[in-house]
């Protein structure tokens, strides 16, 4: 519970953060809210020699909307997401999922950028950004690039992000109907299983569906069979039941909070709940 010694520097800009990182000897790490990194440091599972604090970089925080495109700065905290008026109006699913994270203290510190970069297999927001088909905006020494959320997460704590790159923001088209449903770990409140569903409905028929799960496996991923089953359906109870029954993940996690079998079953249950909630929006 006592981290090993480290140096600490505050970055005033994205460029400075990247320069500090590139100039650092040993294991330098960016730190935002610190609520994933510091617990690891306290257990000495991470022993960075330098922390580069990005939390004071101006312009990386807050939510905006322009012509139906919503943009969230990487440093926006979960608590800010939870109560943001733009999100509550245009993409309540994000506020809903952020409000389910951890406890109040965690939400006050943790950031969306940190959550996506860290990519804990049980974190909530990855499922949401995948379901929303969000773009993840990244800055590095060589300039800026954008990755589709669906391509960003690739494995256990594995993301498409180089050592010296920073997530700067996340953007997505405001969904028409989306919801998040989660089975919380009783102790940590992380997702044992969390499912985000985003639906497009025209004349009572589902014309498009993106459904993503977190917690169940190594990383957040789409539930393709569910999406297929939903598309063209009328979203009535039977259709939802049939679609959620199609939910299936590989490499299912297992721990004291849930065996493989339980997580598979809960993926189906919460898929059903997320779709039903989205359909009702």
């Amino acid at each position: 519970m006592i981290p090993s010694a480290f140096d600490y520097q505050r970055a005033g800009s994205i460029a400075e953060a990247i320069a500090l990182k590139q100039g650092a000897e040993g294991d330098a790490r960016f730190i935002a809210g610190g609520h994933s990194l510091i617990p690891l440091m306290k257990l000495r599972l991470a022993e960075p020699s330098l922390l580069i604090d990005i939390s004071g970089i101006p312009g990386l925080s807050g939510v905006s909307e322009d012509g139906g495109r919503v943009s969230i700065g990487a440093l926006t905290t979960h608590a800010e997401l939870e109560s943001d008026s733009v999100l509550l109006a245009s993409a309540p699913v994000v506020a809903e999922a952020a409000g389910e994270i951890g406890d109040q203290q965690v939400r006050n510190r943790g950031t969306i950028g940190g959550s996506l970069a860290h990519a804990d297999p049980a974190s909530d927001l990855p499922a949401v950004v995948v379901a929303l088909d969000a773009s993840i905006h990244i800055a590095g020494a060589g300039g800026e690039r954008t990755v589709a959320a669906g391509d960003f997460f690739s494995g256990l704590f594995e993301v498409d992000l180089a050592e010296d790159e920073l997530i700067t923001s996340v953007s997505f088209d405001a969904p028409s109907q989306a919801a998040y449903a989660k089975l919380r770990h009783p102790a940590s409140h992380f997702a044992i299983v969390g499912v985000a569903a985003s639906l497009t409905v025209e004349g009572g028929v589902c014309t498009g569906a993106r459904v993503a799960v977190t917690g169940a496996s190594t990383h957040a991923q789409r539930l393709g069979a569910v999406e297929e089953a939903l598309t063209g359906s009328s979203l009535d109870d039977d259709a939802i039941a049939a679609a959620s029954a199609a939910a299936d993940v590989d490499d299912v996690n297992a721990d004291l909070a849930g065996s493989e079998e339980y997580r598979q079953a809960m993926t189906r249950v919460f898929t059903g709940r997320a779709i039903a909630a989205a359909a009702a929006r």
Partner: protein
Amino acid sequence: MTMQATPGQLVGQRVRRREDPRLVKGRGSYVDDMKLPGMLHLAFKRSDVAHGIIRSIDTSAAEAMPGVELVLTGAQLAEIIPPMPVATPFPAPDHHAVTPDRVRYVGEPIAVVVATDRFLAADAADVIEVDIEELPAVIDPERAANGDPAVIHEAFENNLAVPFAPAGTGVNPETLEVEDESALNEAFENADVVVSQRMFSQRLVPNAMEPRGVIARFEPGNDELTVWSTTQNPHIARTLLAAILGMGQHQVRVIAPDVGGGFGSKINVYGEDFAAAAISRDIGRPVKWIEDRSEAFMTTIHGRDVIGYIDLAATGEGKVTAVKMRLIADIGAYEMVLTAAIPTLVAFMISGVYDIPVVRAELTEVFTNKMPTDAYRGAGRPEGIYFLERAMDMLASELGMDPADVRRVNFIQPDQFPYTTAGGMVYDSGEYERLLDQALENAGWEQMKADRDAARAEGRIVGLGMSFYTEICGFGPSAAMPTVGLWEHASVSVERDGKVRASSGASSHGQGHETTFAQMLADDLGIPMDDISIIHGDTGQVREGTGTFGSRSQVVGGTALLMASGKVKDKMRVFAAQMLETQPGDLSFSDGMIGPTGQEDTGVAFAEVAGFAYIPIPLPPDTEPGLSEEAFWEPEGFTWPFGCYITQVEIDRDTGELELQRFVGVDDCGNVINPLIVAGQIHGGIAQGVGQALTEEAVYDEGSGQLLTASFMDYQIPRARDFPRFELDHTVTPSPLNPMGVKGIGEAGTIGSTPSIVNAAVDALSGHGVEHIDMMLRPEKLWRLIQGGDA
């Protein structure tokens, strides 16, 4: 509310806790707040394997770090202090503060670093290299009891701690020979119904808000050792520290400043405490060690971990004719101060609130490669009551009886008190049926049942649970703990200005002694509470004491205070009588005055008498000047509070998540000094008892012996949002064993709530063919039962 209390101006009132403004505003003073000049810091190198032989330790890298003053291995420390003591009368394996040769649980100290700051000490401990030859981890107690897969202490064959038998439960405690079994056999042969079930009261982590900590300061100039410790019982700590260090008790002072909870885990004196004291003496400088939360999970005692094979024989009308419990306690790797004694309390509870003619308990204590167990809130009584109250519900369902009725027909009746159980326990007082009726009425039991049935008809999984507990409180007399004694000490001094300093050997670590004791004395002395200060937690200021545990502070400590107060009053009467030219026997205390009974206001002011006592001209004959008296009080026997908890739960069919929807409780702890504090104790107790039922379990990995639930990310203590409003009430059946008629309430909620919740969950799933579920009631377990599988 049917609240009653002994008459008085303050006793019985909801007086706010005097200590709270200090504690909640961050103005308390805890061990870690203290910094002494020249103080060094300790960190322990701990085992990361469960079982093994230490082949070598390399401390050179640690020693080379600037600021590291000293590194001691277990073997080196063993040269300056002997193995640690136990306070139980049974043989125990050697248990060193820091292990010299072998590791027996994950987290066991292997070496200790002394450095100029805490962070440096931790870094240095990190670079100590230890080579351990691993042995198989012994985790399952029932396998362990056959020496499988390994033997942990060579002197204890098959990992069995010395076998012993609790008095009066069918095995002769002296000879360990099985007494006549014919009555037992006959009861089971003639029974209309027999209920048999293996149950498990799982291992728990106490999780006091403040972890453990110690500062030891040996002063070479005068050979005195002062130890600041997060202890619940500074005097016992003093006695044990002096013994192990080979010092006189007059040379050792133990101070417990504000202590942030203990739940029994801080009764024990730990290896870190002995090591700190020995090291400070060795190097002549103060040293400090503060436990971190990971250490608290792994290396502060755990609670419970008892398997019970329960058999209950009864007639067709539900009258219980015999109970048998075969108990297997997994006590972990060593014996701590009270480890071996705690499971005996399980056996003491075998009769609960019922008039059962024949009982029998067999107890086996088994060593495993886990943190030792010891007293944790309830200590033995939660396990016993859980086993019995589950079995009573199983009996009810076997016979198709209402759970209330099956309890009612078995209650010990009011005219049977004092009641001696078949196991030899003597209950002081009780009126169970009255309390049951109160609980049923408050709950609206008939309506609850109708609502449950209606909910079930809609396909919802709803269940009702009931439990009826009694428990052992007011720990004393001394015969119950012959190695330490179980009296309490108190002193009351009236200062020259009429203000009062009172001390108690009971040592609050959150309970509120500063309030309840002052309330009681204010009424007794007829002065305002604000004129009284309560001193506890310092062997330098409180002459003697036993401590705060086993719900004994008000019962035993409170009575000792009242006795000391009585002695002071007797003396004040002598001075006042001289001042008033009357007889001492006619004088009473009220509203700051001492005067003729009923007309105290015509007498003389309390403060004036106090002043006169210190300048007594002329001194009354045969009287010493001054007003300072002390008392030791030894109780005659235990006190036995009781209560009934009715709960309603609903289980989510899809996920197995359980919602606690109602909690109706009626407790009887005798007379109530402060209803606010009693409610607080019950609330906290219920929370911990519900935690055991629903969310808490310390799990060690079978293969590796690692503690899998070693943080709050994995081990869930319940949160406020997990509870409905508690609907609480009281009946009052005073104890005849002390002048205040109090019984103790610190552990009741924990003891009564657990079985009620499990009973409710079993009731909810009864339609799925479920007869019993082992705790904790993980959602997945319940989901599997709903799916029709095994938990």
